[in-house]
């Protein structure tokens, strides 16, 4: 091997969209501008996740903070993971954790008013379905009552991360994710009226 660094720098502007996140991050070690591509790839999803938990205004700041922290710590990224989403969601989750009270207030407000600032821009079918069931307020109330750990697991999984990815994001074993998820789901289920859809008839007298 010769001149890896130089090659990396020269290749920085070529075929950036090719390759997985790990390749991009590896390249950004020598050619920092490559990291911008990672933002373009993942910022919208990370923004939605943060907005879901803290509201759209707080999300603006935290998206920036998430990617700045990721950029500063990119040399710690485990390059054996091709997909950077768990890492980015993990950083966002830790930042959200610093605003624990604000998140609880946010969900309580939704529970109280039935108005969801994170979703207000959308008047689509999805919202109507939830609203129609009158479940949104109970759901928000239940989320406000969960522990931070349980909320982390529940909302990461609900945002589309798998168990393994959630485990990576939170830096806990997958079995911890499973057990937290079970407890969190049970709490939410009870808050929604105790019906367990996987075990019909459980609540029957």
């Amino acid at each position: 091997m010769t001149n890896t660094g130089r090659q990396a720098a020269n290749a920085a502007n070529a075929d950036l969209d090719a390759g997985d996140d790990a390749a991009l991050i590896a390249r950004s070690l020598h050619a920092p501008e490559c990291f911008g591509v990672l933002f373009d790839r993942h910022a919208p999803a990370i923004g939605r996740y943060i907005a879901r938990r803290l509201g759209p205004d707080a999300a603006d700041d935290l998206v920036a903070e998430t990617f700045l922290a990721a950029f500063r710590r990119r040399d710690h990224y485990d390059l054996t993971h091709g997909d950077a989403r768990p890492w980015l969601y993990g950083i966002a989750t830790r930042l959200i954790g610093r605003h624990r009270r604000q998140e609880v207030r946010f969900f309580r407000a939704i529970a109280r008013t039935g108005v969801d600032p994170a979703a207000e821009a959308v008047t689509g079918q999805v919202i109507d379905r939830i609203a129609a069931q009158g479940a949104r307020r109970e759901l928000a109330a239940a989320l406000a009552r969960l522990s931070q750990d349980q909320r982390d697991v529940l909302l990461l999984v609900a945002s589309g991360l798998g168990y393994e990815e959630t485990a990576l994001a939170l830096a806990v074993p997958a079995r911890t994710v499973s057990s937290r998820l079970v407890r969190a789901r049970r709490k939410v289920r009870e808050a929604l009226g105790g019906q367990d859809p996987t075990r019909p008839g459980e609540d029957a007298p």
Partner: protein
Amino acid sequence: MIGEMEQLEQLCAAVPSPDRQRLTAARAQLSTAIRRETAGHAARRPRLAVSLALRHRWLSRRRLGWAAPLAAAAAVTGVILGSQGVFSPVHHPVPSSSTHDPGLGLAHPATAYVAGQSGTVTPILTATGTALKPIRIGKEYGQISSAIVFRPDGKTAYVLSSTVLGGGSGTVTPIRTATNTALKPIAVGQDPRALAITPDGTTIYVTNYQSGTVTPIRTATNTALAPIRVGGNPWAIAIAPDGKTAYVADTQSGTVTPIRTATNTALTPIRVPAGSFSMAITPDGRTIYVLDLGSSQAQEGMVIPIGTATNTALRSIPIGHAWPSTMNIAITPDSRTAYVANASTGTITPIRTATDTALPRIRLADGAGPIAITPDGRTAYVIAGSGPGRTGTVIPIRTATNQVLRAITVSNLPSVIAITPAPRR
């Protein structure tokens, strides 16, 4: 009625993607940070997960982190850590008349401590390669541990860590090695990067990158003393073998600040031509070698010798283009030869320390990363292919002839190499 998980998924799905305008501000902030780093380049030297600071300790100072409790013949010659805390023992390939005892177990099993991002430190028994229960050293999952030192008696390990978000204040957590339990963390400065312990084990010095200070820790009481102001953004630290002076290199301006350990006072900084992330001191204490990557491709990487007798920088030794990759150094136990690995060119430059002259470069086919030398000084081991997407190999070099021996394949992405010490007799 639909299940709670589906309802939650709908609740999440109901959030619209942030519009372009909202993201523009965040993107601009990132771009500013990127520009600053590209312009300054000094910013960071690339690292892989666990390891750089470990490497600083384990390689440049050669008081091997986990080695202290050992007093036995070393069966394991090298220990390689992958970027995920993957651990490969490597056995000595040159049995011949070696005093090593390959293949036999250790009389006292050594323990390697592997620290990463998850706020835990994992002890590994080197004899069997078994990982023990991780020791939690931080409340936050995102605690990054970047360096470990041991007291010479091996009874306590000190793990340096800061939060994953960076910039936060750091801590040093003592770990009692007999029981693998963490003691109360000791607060140090902002964004700590490296630590070193005096040969007598009484004091640890921690460089605080953001604070521009060095925090001494008294190991008898595990308390931090008043920080010593050195200015700039200090990173690399080396302590003279006599323990009287600690040297701290600034990453930005070209200074190396000596600290008198008896009084914990900073002495007049030594001017060197460039900022540095790495340095080593010869076992005889005469010379410090500061590694300078060069600040662009137009400049060569340099090794800057500092004579400790006069505290002045001597003539720099060019080792070829190094920017923007990494350089590593290891010095033979007899202090006669320093081996400087240049990852950019994939070469090793041996330097004769008596005259500070470069000998012919050794070209490696697969790159040249971290380097370590056996206690008998006969063999240098270089991690090759430590870059992304490469398989891990370790290249032995016979120091007598500077001849490259057959490569050893190890686990993926190795990033740290350390060698068990010579038996104490």
